[in-house]
């Protein structure tokens, strides 16, 4: 066996001391050490690979370029129209003594890796960090909607917890047209037993609840029952409402509840929009989250719950925007 230099023992001792006394610093340094390699691969795949492939599909690139120019022109027009709306909004807010909205800066970041080396969390790593004004808790969005929030940040990189991670909980509203929005908490179901990996769960209060339904057989005579649920003594079985304790009422006497079929029923119509509520300090309201795809009542009857299909395709994220209040930082 060859003789080993004493430097190895010194290095080993130093590392152990650092691990004991400044574990987090060591953690951050190791994470930062890997970042250049991750950035290099991300840069290569975003800059070099498209150029190489463009050589073989020039016509498609020209078409895409034209389409993007058209879209940019349309967005410019939209932006100029929005400016006027913003001025009007500011004036109205001043008149109504409502504090102005906080101005957020959208920092574009490249996704440099997914899931980390362990793959335990549903997360992505971004190529920008504290130096760009990013702080923990900042909202991360894509053009389609909310992606998640910044869980931890270093000087030049940040880890984003995705919406579908079970530890991610965000206050949201069901954006019902013509109805009072229901507020609730959205939670990821990244590893639920049903295997719906990209479905998030939405919990929201049972009241007020409005039930509109159509009697079977005669769609012309639309019967509307407004049921203000004042207690939770109900359950859903086979798409029917039935009162479990109280006396039989209209809900059980009436024809089959068409909440899942009725076109006018906003609450249960497929694709009811779910948006952020704005109750959080760092996640502004009105950001698209996804669509409600199914709903039900929890076994205790305390709240309603539904499954939400995220608007963002998490497998196809190459760059995202972090909404920072710092305005770009350094």
């Amino acid at each position: 066996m060859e003789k080993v230099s004493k430097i190895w023992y010194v290095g080993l001792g130093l590392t152990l001391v650092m691990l004991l006394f400044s574990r987090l610093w060591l953690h951050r340094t190791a994470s930062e050490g890997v970042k250049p390699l991750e950035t290099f691969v991300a840069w290569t795949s975003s800059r070099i690979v498209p150029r190489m492939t463009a050589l073989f599909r020039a016509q498609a690139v020209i078409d895409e370029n034209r389409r993007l120019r058209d879209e940019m022109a349309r967005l410019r027009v939209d932006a100029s129209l929005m400016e006027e709306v913003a001025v009007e909004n500011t004036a109205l807010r001043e008149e109504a003594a409502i504090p102005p909205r906080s101005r957020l800066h959208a920092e574009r970041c490249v996704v440099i890796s997914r899931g980390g080396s362990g793959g335990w969390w549903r997360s992505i790593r971004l190529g920008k960090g504290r130096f760009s004004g990013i702080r923990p808790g900042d909202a991360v969005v894509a053009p389609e909607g909310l992606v998640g929030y910044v869980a931890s940040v270093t000087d030049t990189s940040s880890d984003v917890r995705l919406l579908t991670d079970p530890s991610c909980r965000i206050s949201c509203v069901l954006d019902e047209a013509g109805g009072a929005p229901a507020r609730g908490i959205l939670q990821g179901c990244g590893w639920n037993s049903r295997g719906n990996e990209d479905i998030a769960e939405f919990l929201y209060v049972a009241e007020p609840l409005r039930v509109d339904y159509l009697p079977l057989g005669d769609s012309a005579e639309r019967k509307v029952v407004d049921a203000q649920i004042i207690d939770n003594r109900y359950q859903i079985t086979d798409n029917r409402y039935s009162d479990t304790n109280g006396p039989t009422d209209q809900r059980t006497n009436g024809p089959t509840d068409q909440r899942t079929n009725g076109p006018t029923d906003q609450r249960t119509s497929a694709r009811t929009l779910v948006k952020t509520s704005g109750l959080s300090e760092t996640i502004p309201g009105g950001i698209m989250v996804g669509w409600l795809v199914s709903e039900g009542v929890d076994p205790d009857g305390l709240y309603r719950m539904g499954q939400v299909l995220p608007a963002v395709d998490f497998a196809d994220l190459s760059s995202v925007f972090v909404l920072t209040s710092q305005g770009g930082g350094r």
Partner: protein
Amino acid sequence: MKLDFPVMAAALLLAAALQSLLPPLHGSALALKLPILPAVALYYVLQRQMPLGIFAALWAGILLDATGAVPAGTSSVTLVIVAAAVMSLKQYMPEASVTVSGLVGMVTVLLLVVVQYCALRTRTPFRAPPYLILRPLATILPLSFVATPLIAFCLSRIDLAAGNVKPRKEVEGK
């Protein structure tokens, strides 16, 4: 001059980056990655001297914890314990055996996943039920059996080219 440190540092950093960048092996939830970093550490543990093995295991663990958002110290302590145990048993193992290397790789990864899972459950909001790690484990264990000797082979070639180790015939001739 020996190039042990540059080769080890490059191997560990590249392995960490590769492990982070590689797509998950199994679905997208609880998608454990191909265990490249433990395989690099095990090469040094099985085929090099004691301080190098422990040093590589320690840093592989630090990198695993840092890039995998696992509580700091979890993987490093586990890998150092594994390294110490393997080194104490090394005299009973056939040298440069692919099967032994693969088996050690499998046991290490199994231990690492279990310890990481326990640390995540107790020290973070991670709440995946234990049975859900069985399926990803079934995928990565056979892969680690293959990856450990393969990575060891590549690293031994690099070490040989860098002059960090002498060819086996030369050592036996002496």
